């Protein structure tokens, strides 16, 4: 593969000025997104298949993907990770009131009960 195709991009992502003041007041979370965060071309060096696809057996009798055309990258389910698409939790809004924030809420709501008893008239 020619080196030119492996060249890193050197574009800077534009940042807007929106909310810079506000952001400056908070300790910013370290920028975890590197500049080179475009969607990368799937490359032979990165993509190694576990099991070869039969139709890609090379004429030399080898079944190693490294010898295949870099532009026809195909893989099967063994090289995918179905887990990631399934790890979404919609069962989270339980009635857990044990966290710190909930405890704080409870304290304040109990305080708010007393003056309120006098305020509401029937």
């Amino acid at each position, binding site marked *: 593969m*020619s080196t030119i195709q492996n060249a890193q991009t050197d574009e800077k992502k534009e940042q*807007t000025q929106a909310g810079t003041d506000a*952001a400056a007041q908070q300790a*910013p979370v370290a920028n975890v997104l590197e500049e080179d965060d475009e*969607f990368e*071309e799937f490359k032979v060096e990165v*993509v190694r298949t576990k099991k070869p696809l039969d139709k890609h057996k090379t004429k030399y009798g080898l079944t190693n993907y490294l010898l295949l055309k870099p532009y026809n990258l195909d893989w099967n389910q063994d090289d995918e990770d179905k887990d*990631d698409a399934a790890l*979404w939790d919609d069962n989270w*809004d339980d009635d857990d009131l044990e966290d710190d924030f909930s405890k704080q809420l409870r304290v304040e709501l109990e305080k708010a009960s007393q003056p309120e008893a006098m305020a509401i008239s029937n």
Partner: protein
Amino acid sequence: MAGSTRLVKALYKFKMLKTTKNPEELAQIVPIASVYTVKVLDDIWKEDGNWDVLLEEKKRSLWDEMAILHFRASAAYRQSQFITAYRHQLDMYNAFLREFQNMSRWAVYALFAISKDLYDLARRADTQQSMVDSQANKVEEATRAINQGFSACMTDREPLLSKSRKWGTYHMANILFGLYLQFKAYNLCNSMIRAIKASELPSLDRFPMSDQVTFRFHRGTLAFRSEKYSIAKEDLLFALEHCHRDAYKNKTRILMHLTPIMMMEGKMPHSRLLRRYPRVRSIYGPLVKAVKSGDLQTFDKQLRAVEQQLVSLGLYMATEYVRKLVIRQLLYKVFLIEGRASRVPFSKFQAGFAVAGFPQMEIAEVECILADMIFSGYVKGYLAHDHGLAVLSKQMPFPRISTLHNNPSP
């Protein structure tokens, strides 16, 4: 052997490749710094001490002309003369395209290679140009040429599908996405998607998985940008599910867009998922925690802390929509703490907002928020304004979020 003889041999090799129609060989030789090309140039240099033989103007066939231009481009590239290299590469590209019209599927792999080289040279040329003046427009010019390459694939009239250049369409589209996104030409991306949809191509699922995943990622993020979140979700979920397990960076990129959509629908990323992708966790982890607890202040704080990163990826607005869930959760917590009372005074909710970092909130504002929550379906009940309280439905006053509308509303 003299340099000129070496060159003649090289041209002959190109000619042979055109005849044997070997897709791999041509694609391996045609990159600007291919092993073969470097060798030829080295050999010529060894003989002549220069590359002048490449510049000789002769009457040549189009294919030979294309090959010579390729070597000229490569020689200029070797000498870091990127503007010159680009010019030769563009001429070579156009010559190739003219031949390409009469070639079939086997040649698309070579097209991919020279397209990428053209783009890379254009960028380097622009960088060099911008040091001289403001005429750095090679990338735009290259994009137009590559667009023609894309069309040459998509509009192939070859009746035998197995030989059709159409099989190169999605790969070329993916190259173009990269280019268009460099200058944020989202409208061009969308026109291209429409053009593909309108053309008669084999269905996407018949193309190599790398083409499918990349295309779906781009189509999904573009839909995301237009706030078409349900459509975006389909593409992004597919991309996530089928992305090769080793392409870690790509998986992260997909998740950066997919997470806010799932959150809007009430589906939180599992801690196992966040553990695997620390970058995703550092941005969305604290937001997820705040949603679950109803802690509005922490949510807002985290949103501010990562605002610039979200904005740069076009994710800020979508993540802001998640804020409604935090409010819903806050109200729900108040409801629970009040013993699931079906009548809850506004002042209780007001006290809740005070704990959540908004002590200044007026009753009228609280009422307004409640009205909005009821309108959006997050809360079931009505407001008894004169009595200063919310009357909540006896059954499911706070429906589970994931059972609500599919299209998250702002």
